């Protein structure tokens, strides 16, 4: 029996779109058997819709102060009550979805693409280039992310954009390691060799062959990271190094509500629950993706 006995002859291999359709189909089948994954995905979609439709959904202006409506408990007019300056907590939580989701996506996209590019080029070219890039990665991994982010944000002037920049600076190394690992494994495989011998350029091989095959671990990491970034960004805002009041950002809102926690519990609790639900949803989706995409766990 030959080595390739388990695989169909090359001529019979599926075309790329057909393969993609099959993968998507099997993913969907796997997802349907995983109720927690479905709940997670539905929650994420729900929050995306809330973020997109914030102007339509929010009954009040999230930053327009109404001192006469201070500290009202949840009611029909204000489902989540009002805060210390009379802002409607419900409207602010809705707008917060937009800010917190966008923040997380921005950081993960920036850190993910920079890190992946660094890692793939290190793994592909190898030698001293690999050595240099990976040592730089090690340096950034050694940093206490939150403290460095706090320092950068403080030095540049504390606001949301600087905080996101600072978080991205501390976040890319994980992707560099993943991208390098995947590239190293794939580089020696037959189909990459074949593409190379056919004279494909490096960038074509990376885009057409390496990235699509390395995408699974990166995608899992990115999904889980969306949750972690929300926690870190909200944490930075909570201690004053991210979004500034009266921005309707969930961390800022929890911070605003902390002095009222014993008497007006709703001010901090609703935004905190929003963070919790969205983060748990990303974790559920990430876990499910890992179960479905990681062949070692597929039993």
């Amino acid at each position, binding site marked *: 029996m030959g080595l390739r006995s388990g695989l169909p002859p090359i001529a019979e291999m599926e075309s790329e779109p057909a393969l993609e359709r099959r993968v998507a189909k099997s993913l969907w089948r796997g997802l349907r058997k995983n109720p927690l994954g479905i709940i997670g995905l539905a929650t994420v979609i729900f929050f995306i819709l809330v973020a997109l439709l914030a102007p339509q959904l929010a009954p009040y202006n999230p930053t327009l102060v109404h001192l006469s409506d201070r500290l009202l408990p949840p009611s029909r007019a204000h489902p989540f009550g009002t805060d210390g300056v009379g802002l409607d907590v419900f409207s602010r939580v809705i707008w917060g979805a937009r800010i917190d989701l966008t923040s997380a996506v921005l950081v993960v996209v920036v850190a993910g693409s920079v890190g992946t590019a660094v890692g793939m080029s290190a793994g592909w070219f190898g030698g001293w280039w690999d050595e240099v890039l990976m*040592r*730089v990665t*090690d*340096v950034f991994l*050694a*940093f*206490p*992310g*939150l*403290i*460095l982010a*706090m*320092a*950068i*944000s*403080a*030095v*540049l002037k504390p606001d949301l954009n600087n905080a996101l920049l600072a978080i991205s600076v501390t976040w890319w190394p994980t992707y560099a390691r993943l991208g390098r690992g995947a590239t190293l494994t794939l580089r020696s495989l037959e189909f990459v060799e074949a593409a190379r011998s056919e004279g494909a350029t490096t960038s074509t091989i990376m885009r057409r062959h390496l990235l699509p095959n390395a995408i699974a671990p990166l995608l899992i990491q990115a999904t889980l990271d969306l*949750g972690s970034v929300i*926690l870190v960004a*909200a*944490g930075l805002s*909570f*201690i*004053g*190094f991210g979004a500034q009041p009266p921005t309707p950002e969930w*961390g800022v809102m*929890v*911070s605003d509500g*902390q002095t009222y*926690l*014993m008497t007006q519990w709703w001010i*901090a609790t609703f935004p*905190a629950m929003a*963070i*919790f639900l969205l*983060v*748990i949803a990303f*974790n*559920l989706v990430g876990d499910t993706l890992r179960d479905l995409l990681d062949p070692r766990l597929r039993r």
Partner: protein
Amino acid sequence: MSIAHYALRRIALMIFVLFGVTLITFGVTHVVPVDPVLALVGDHAPESLVQQVRKEFGLDKPLPVQYVVYIDNVLHGNLGISIADQQPVSSDLAQYLPATIELATAAIVVAIVVGLPAGILSALYRNRWPDQIVRILSLGGVSLPVFFTALVFLAIFYVKLGWLPGPGQLGTYTPAPPRITGMVVVDSLFSGDWAALVDGLRHLFLPAVVLGWSSAAIIARMTRGSLLEVLGADSVRTARAKGLHERRVVMRHAVRNALIPTVTVMGLAYGGLLQGAVLTETIFSWPGIGRYATISAINVDVPAVMGVTLVAALIYSVVNLIVDLVYAYLDPRIRFS
């Protein structure tokens, strides 16, 4: 590769990484829009004084020279002068670091004591209700914002029920034990001060639980995963085939092997706790380096923040080194790859 050889290589690598870290802390300190000299002498100081201080700190020299001076200073334990309290950053850190180590250690103890049994239970009852409960609790641990759990725990156990004391390391009426290590619990143990010991432990409990929860979650998941893998391995099958009692199979053969990857996670978690301490310490008024970092960052006290960053990176790297060496000792395959 012998273990000594491996250790030397890892140490050389760590020194290189720490040099890289100083390059970045130096970079951040020198691109600051805030002029450290003006911050020190004030905006209205005469030009001659500004120039004099600038010279004193070597800030009139070219950047590479300044970097060499900076490295020389760092190697001699001189991390600069804090702008906020005019004290050497190194003595500030010596003052605040023990409290953070005390808190992080208590948190990792909580995490191991809770996470390890939870993970084992989870693996043994895979997909049955104990596993589901552990899964829900660990999802909560990694998904709840720590700054909110801290607030809620304080509100419930301190304000509402009064079972536990509020923020700080000791109550107002408890005299602090003589400072030996700087860790209240350890110091009161050394000096036989039982009142301070009890009060210190009660103060330590809530922040340690809040901080340790997410690490407990990570340890539980890791233990579950690696135990399930090991339970399917040949050695375990052999032990079962020999007719050994199931409990003995699990404890002697499976858990011991499953612990190897868990050790790594514990080390990483400990490093992570140092920065998780930023939020927890700020809320619990815990006088550690996390709270010091927050206060310094608010004051744009750059030397102080960079001092904390450097020390935290050093601790993290050393913990990582120890973890790697322990791992290499436990699992010889690592040394050869």
